[in-house]
């Protein structure tokens, strides 16, 4: 042993190795053979999600007393990476269910709220969603229009949320929405988080969006009109919703980074197989230096992205500051995924443009990674702020 600390999260502990091996087997044996069909049909893969529930994946980072597995966000990132290597729709279903749906309840919920909601969510029997984005804008969360007004023992929610993952499945149990609950002296809104159970009168789930990618995941617009929930459905402190979800978003960014690394790696995996088999001009594609260089670049991007994501994930678990690192991880990983998907599709030629090939799906799934949970522009803004650069109008 030298005095050099272990490489940034790339040497996994045995339990993490075992977890990765388990998820890899599931992805290869059960997801890969059928996911193309779900993707093509735009159908939510209930049986696969149920198996993931039985595997304990939805409870991974939560304590056992709430039905969780006692793992952490690092373990979750490993799982997301491994799933996204094969399919992103399932990975985002898990990420949104755990990172956005259940995590705020665990982080900010009262003991009673945790006991009430977490066990079902941890088991994967039900799913939760988090509604922040509105039709009028997502990047500027301070511009939230949805309101929640206190009326006796109830909150009355009015407004619309856009693009909310996991919000309309048969097993969706609740959506946590951000809403303006008051105004400060300077006119800025007080934003709070309110839990709205599925099926609450006044809460309407719009039709499934027709999406470019992630087509086997569930995304809806949500409308709230005089929607009443009990007062104890306020999650965390009144007026602190904004600060709370900012910290949730740091976690979410690392998770989307992990998903991006998985997709970038999936592109490398697929291309290595393809250039070894496909022939053109009397030789294997692998014989072409141009294509070798493309694959080498893909590998390099994946490696760098993985380092950034594992570092941010390790910080998250250690409770160290990570605003800068999370933004960098999400930025470089999502851009690596996008670049790899573009190159992989090119290497596959016409087959790369077919929905039936994994790289065809990777191409369609990559773009959202640069948009969801903070666009690349937002990540750059965050990094600039962390560098002490002034806010720009």
């Amino acid at each position, binding site marked *: 042993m030298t005095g050099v600390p272990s490489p940034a999260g790339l040497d996994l502990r*045995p*339990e993490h190795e*075992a977890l990765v*091996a388990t998820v890899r087997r*599931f992805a290869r044996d059960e997801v890969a053979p059928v996911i193309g069909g779900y993707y093509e049909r735009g159908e939510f893969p209930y049986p696969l999600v149920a198996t993931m529930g*039985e595997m304990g994946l939805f409870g991974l980072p939560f304590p056992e007393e709430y039905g969780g*597995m*006692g*793992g952490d966000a690092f373990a979750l990132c490993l799982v997301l990476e491994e799933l996204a290597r094969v399919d992103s729709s399932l990975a985002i279903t898990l990420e949104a269910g755990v990172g956005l749906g259940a995590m705020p309840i665990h982080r900010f919920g009262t003991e009673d709220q945790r006991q009430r909601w977490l066990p079902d969510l941890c088991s994967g029997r039900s799913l939760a969603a988090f509604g922040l984005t509105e039709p009028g804008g997502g990047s500027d969360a301070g511009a939230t229009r949805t309101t929640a007004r206190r009326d006796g023992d109830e909150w009355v929610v009015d407004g619309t949320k856009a693009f909310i993952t996991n919000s309309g499945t048969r097993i969706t149990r609740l959506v946590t929405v951000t809403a303006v609950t008051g105004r400060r002296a300077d006119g800025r809104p007080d934003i709070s988080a309110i839990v709205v159970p599925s099926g609450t009168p006044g809460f309407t789930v719009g039709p499934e969006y027709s999406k470019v990618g992630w087509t086997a995941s569930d995304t809806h617009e949500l409308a709230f009109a005089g929607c009443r929930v009990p007062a104890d459905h306020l999650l965390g402190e009144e007026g602190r919703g904004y600060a709370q979800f900012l910290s949730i978003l740091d976690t979410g960014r690392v998770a989307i980074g992990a998903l991006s690394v998985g997709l970038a790696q999936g592109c490398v995996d697929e291309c290595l197989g393809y250039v070894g088999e496909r022939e053109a001009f009397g030789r294997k594609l692998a014989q072409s230096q141009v294509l070798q260089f493309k694959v080498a670049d893909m590998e390099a991007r994946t490696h760098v992205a993985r380092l950034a994501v594992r570092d941010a994930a390790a910080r998250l678990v250690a409770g160290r500051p990570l605003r800068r690192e999370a933004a960098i991880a999400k930025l470089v990983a999502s851009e690596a995924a996008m670049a790899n998907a573009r190159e992989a599709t090119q290497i596959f030629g016409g087959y790369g443009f077919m929905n039936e090939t994994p790289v065809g799906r990777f191409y369609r799934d990559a773009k959202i990674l640069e948009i969801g949970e903070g666009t690349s522009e937002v990540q750059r803004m965050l990094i600039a702020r962390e560098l002490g650069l002034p806010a720009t109008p």
Partner: protein
Amino acid sequence: MNVVVCVKQIPDPAAPASLDPTTHTLDRSGKLILDDSDSYGVEMALQLAANVEGSEVTVVSMAPNSETSGLRTALAMGAAKAILVSDGALAGTDALGTAKVLAAAIRRAEPDLVIAATESTDGYTGTVPVQVAELLGLPSVTFAKAVATDGSSVKVERQTEAGYDDVECSLPAVVTVTAGVVEPRYPSFKGIMAAKSKPVDTLSLADLGIDPSEVGFTGARQEITDVSAAESRSAGEIVVDEGDGAQRIVAFLEQIKVV
């Protein structure tokens, strides 16, 4: 009820395998994993144990280099403890030698029921479990496609070419299960963490009182004299159905004399 499951740890079939050029044996120096065939045995054992109060599942393996990753997988699925036999002198052990070692290890666990797979994925001689049964002086029921037990006897649906036999046998006994007898669970992270602290009893040949000359290359009665690559399959014939597809299939089957 003490249920013992034989689990073989093998080189990952998904990774390219290599044979030793002189002994023709499989290179087992890398990381080994739980043989998929045995994950059915582990699951079967866990389900049977869950139905008989006071039951415990022990997994037993013989493997080089004190390998435990496959055992940890079985422990993560829910087995209570493991016995591993690992000894430098075991290199080159043939199927009978393997059975001797396993039988000695299994005896220590005082089994009521021993479960193994019908055949392993890498060696697939399919001879180890019945040899273990013989050495332990136990009855064996092979090719089980369904198993039930009350702790004193075992009922097995034994797969045959025509269908299945109903077999009932008193315990202790050895049962070999077919792939698909049950759906193996994936280990959860909680299970993986719990497995870290479950006991793995690692034994040498001396611990088992086995003379090294009975096993390994010296004790092996089988020798692999030659290995040759399987002939690559030639391209098939594609027949386009022009309304006579069924007749052409029958004609083909007649031609190769299967009907």
